[in-house]
């Protein structure tokens, strides 16, 4: 089940909210845990057992760590738990990838059946690992009840597409959280805005993106429309999903970490990664980069640390070399920025900084989008006029006409301008009376329009099935 579906919004969610409201305070986690399992079961009827297994692994090992704190037994429990978590992740996510590459590399023929990828495995594995590691480091206390761990791992608002919620950030709220109409209302507005981003913008642009390689009369313009469309699509899809997760969290009294902060307004790639998928960046910083020594090592080792982190970041996104290339590209750009790039960027006009960031982001997302090297090369060649095709074609002009307003709205939507306009309106002496009615009506309209798109069965891809 995904948030951007009629079955979730108008069937699952109201029933869960009703049951949650009717459940006495001390038992609310039971309702959340069971609802979350049903949510996951609806999409993964078999692999929901994996989710439970993962929770059991981390529950038992963190209890052992707590009990034998400071002894080798605690360390062994931590190592065992990490091996088991990563083992599951590697088996289910990278099993086929590893075997395929071994076959190619060693010219052998190991034949294994296709291993299906459980939805959200990368997210919940990272979350469960963060729990055990935080307990080991003494940054969090091990939960005495399995329900606490189970609820944290399975919590449906953030289960399948993040943000990657670290245990210590919700530890208190798992046992004691405040519910209020105001917080619920904040959650509603965040959820509806996220839903609008996903359904009205990301899904609409996905139609344009998906036709890039199948148009009957390809042109340079068509390839650019596809590439720019994907830059917008992935942002609105991912940030929309994060907004929905954060909003749902608030409806149930949780405060999940922010995941996006207008990344396309960044002035350097370093800045971009402080704004894009922030919860993943923080996870890798705290659990990989810093344990490797971070920047408090020799220069060579520091380079290596950065490249390792970005190799893993790429691989986390999918079991394919294009994701690795994508990650390593960012690693290389970040190394460049750390040594010379950032100094240069501070000296040039802002507009060139933005152009530099958007250029790299555009190229990187073409790499990210196409798992097939052949397709990726075709798109790059098409974009840069290396195919024997015209600059524009009738179809690309029609698409430009069809999507130009969507691009404009999307472009504005990636900036902080709408937020600033809303703040200006709410503070204006003359217009502030209008702010509330405009905001309420806009939100209602947004909800209705997204429902219309969902009811009509519009294209509704789920991009995170590889994560």
């Amino acid at each position, binding site marked *: 089940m995904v948030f951007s579906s009629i079955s979730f919004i108008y069937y699952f969610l109201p029933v869960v909210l009703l049951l949650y409201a009717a459940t006495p305070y001390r038992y609310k986690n039971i309702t959340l845990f069971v609802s979350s399992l049903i949510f996951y079961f*609806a999409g993964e009827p078999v692999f929901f057992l994996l989710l439970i297994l993962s929770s059991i692994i981390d529950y038992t090992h963190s209890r052992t760590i707590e009990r034998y704190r400071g002894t080798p037994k605690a360390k062994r429990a931590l190592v065992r738990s990490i091996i088991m978590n990563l083992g599951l992740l590697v088996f289910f996510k990278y099993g086929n990838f590893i075997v395929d590459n071994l076959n190619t590399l060693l010219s052998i023929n190991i034949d294994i059946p296709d291993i299906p990828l459980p939805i959200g495995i990368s997210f919940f594995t990272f979350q469960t690992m963060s729990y055990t590691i935080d307990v080991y480091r003494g940054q969090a206390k091990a939960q005495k009840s399995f329900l606490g761990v189970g609820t944290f791992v399975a919590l449906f608002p953030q289960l399948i597409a993040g943000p990657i919620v670290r245990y210590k950030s919700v530890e208190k709220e798992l046992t004691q959280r405040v519910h209020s109409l105001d917080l619920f209302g904040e959650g509603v507005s965040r959820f509806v805005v996220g839903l609008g981003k996903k359904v009205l913008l990301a899904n609409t642009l996905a139609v344009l993106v998906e036709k890039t390689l199948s148009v009957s009369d390809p042109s340079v313009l068509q390839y650019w429309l596809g590439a720019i469309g994907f830059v917008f699509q992935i942002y609105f899809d991912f940030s929309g999903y994060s907004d929905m997760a954060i909003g749902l969290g608030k409806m149930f009294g949780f405060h999940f970490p922010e995941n996006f902060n207008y990344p396309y307004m960044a002035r350097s790639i370093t800045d971009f990664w402080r704004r894009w998928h922030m919860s993943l960046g923080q996870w890798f910083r705290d659990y990989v980069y810093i344990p490797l020594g971070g920047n408090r090592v020799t220069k060579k080792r520091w380079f290596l640390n950065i490249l390792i982190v970005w190799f893993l970041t790429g691989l986390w996104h999918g079991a394919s070399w294009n994701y690795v290339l994508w990650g390593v590209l960012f690693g290389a750009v970040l190394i460049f920025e750390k040594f010379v790039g950032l100094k240069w960027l501070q000296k040039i006009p802002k507009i060139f900084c933005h152009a530099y960031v958007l250029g790299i982001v555009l190229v990187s997302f073409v790499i990210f989008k196409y798992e097939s090297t052949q397709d990726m090369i075709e798109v790059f060649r098409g974009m840069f006029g290396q195919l024997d095709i015209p600059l524009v074609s009738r179809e690309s002009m029609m698409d430009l006409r069809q999507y130009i307003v969507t691009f404009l709205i999307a472009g504005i939507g990636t900036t902080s301008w709408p937020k600033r306009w809303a703040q200006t309106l709410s503070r204006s002496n003359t217009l502030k009376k209008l702010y509330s009615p405009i905001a*309420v009506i806009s939100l209602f309209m947004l909800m209705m329009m997204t429902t219309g798109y969902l009811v009509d069965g519009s294209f509704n891809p789920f991009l995170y099935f590889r994560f």
Partner: protein
Amino acid sequence: MEKIYAIGFKLLLALVLVIQIITPVASISQAERRHLQERPQFSWDALVDGKYMEDLEKYALDQMPFRDFFRGLKTWTEKKVFLKNMVNDLWIEEEFFFKAYDVPTEEEIQRFTTYIEEIKEQYFLNNPTYVTMIPDKSYYSQDRYWATTEEQTKEWIQEQLTTAKYIDVHSILELSDYYYTDTHWKQEKLFKLINYLETQIDGMEPINQEEWTPQVYEDFIGVYGGQWALPVNPEILEFMRHESFFDIVITNYQQKDLSGQVYDEEKLYGWDGYEVFLSGGSPLIQIENPKRDKELVIFGDSFSSSLVPLLIPQYGKITLIDTRYLPKDYLGEYVSFTGEEEVLFMYSHLIVSNAQTLR
């Protein structure tokens, strides 16, 4: 303000849920011309293999309260917010709806002409055989792109056909010969077409519109009207009656008792009013007129269903075959051909471009 959001959201969810519970399950969508997903049957097998949840999702979509309102709202948003000139591949020019399609390649057209040549070789080796492509409505739109691409399709057909004569009817028809809200042509506008075909097909005779009596249905909304999802004005559908209809026998293989009608008026109130002509899609229909003796075999689609009634007075036997439903290799099991028939392949541009639908 957050309180208003919270209360409003809860009310909306509760309202939809309650309406959903108390509203009877709908079985068809008139506007979309399809059966709606009904509540899926639960089974453990279906649950484990994901089919149950998949059907449940379709059920939720199909049974959403105010479904048609929401579909209309989507069209409105596309037009008024995103300022798209096409919605669901449809666009409007002077009240006429048009639908964009994937332009066929030469190979796709080759599939069509090869298919025709195969039927001719199998059943009609020595029969006079004619082929015509019914223009898509977009051929007459202001956007000349569609006319240009269809001209190309026409050229390919003419180049590829070797054993049948191609009849070009594109210049005979015009936009007003089509419905505003539908893909089809109007039957009452086909007299000029038949009088042109008569000059190309040896056995065909001219017809006189004055001998025909129109019957009118005023609430016709075509397939594009339904897909558009916003309210559209109904239009007039006419069907022409002739005195010879009293003497004929129609065998319709779509019906259990094989009985057929020229005009099935009940269909006017179903999801596709155009099915009034010969009761809509059928693999095989034979119309026998004892007062005449010539025979005509037509391979066609829904466009042919509205043309064929106009030919009834002049043929002893008309056989209308739709090979989307009756594979060509099984034809001989249902029909015996005498070798004396004239054969007309008359397909719409849509079918010509998607010949894989012909079996």
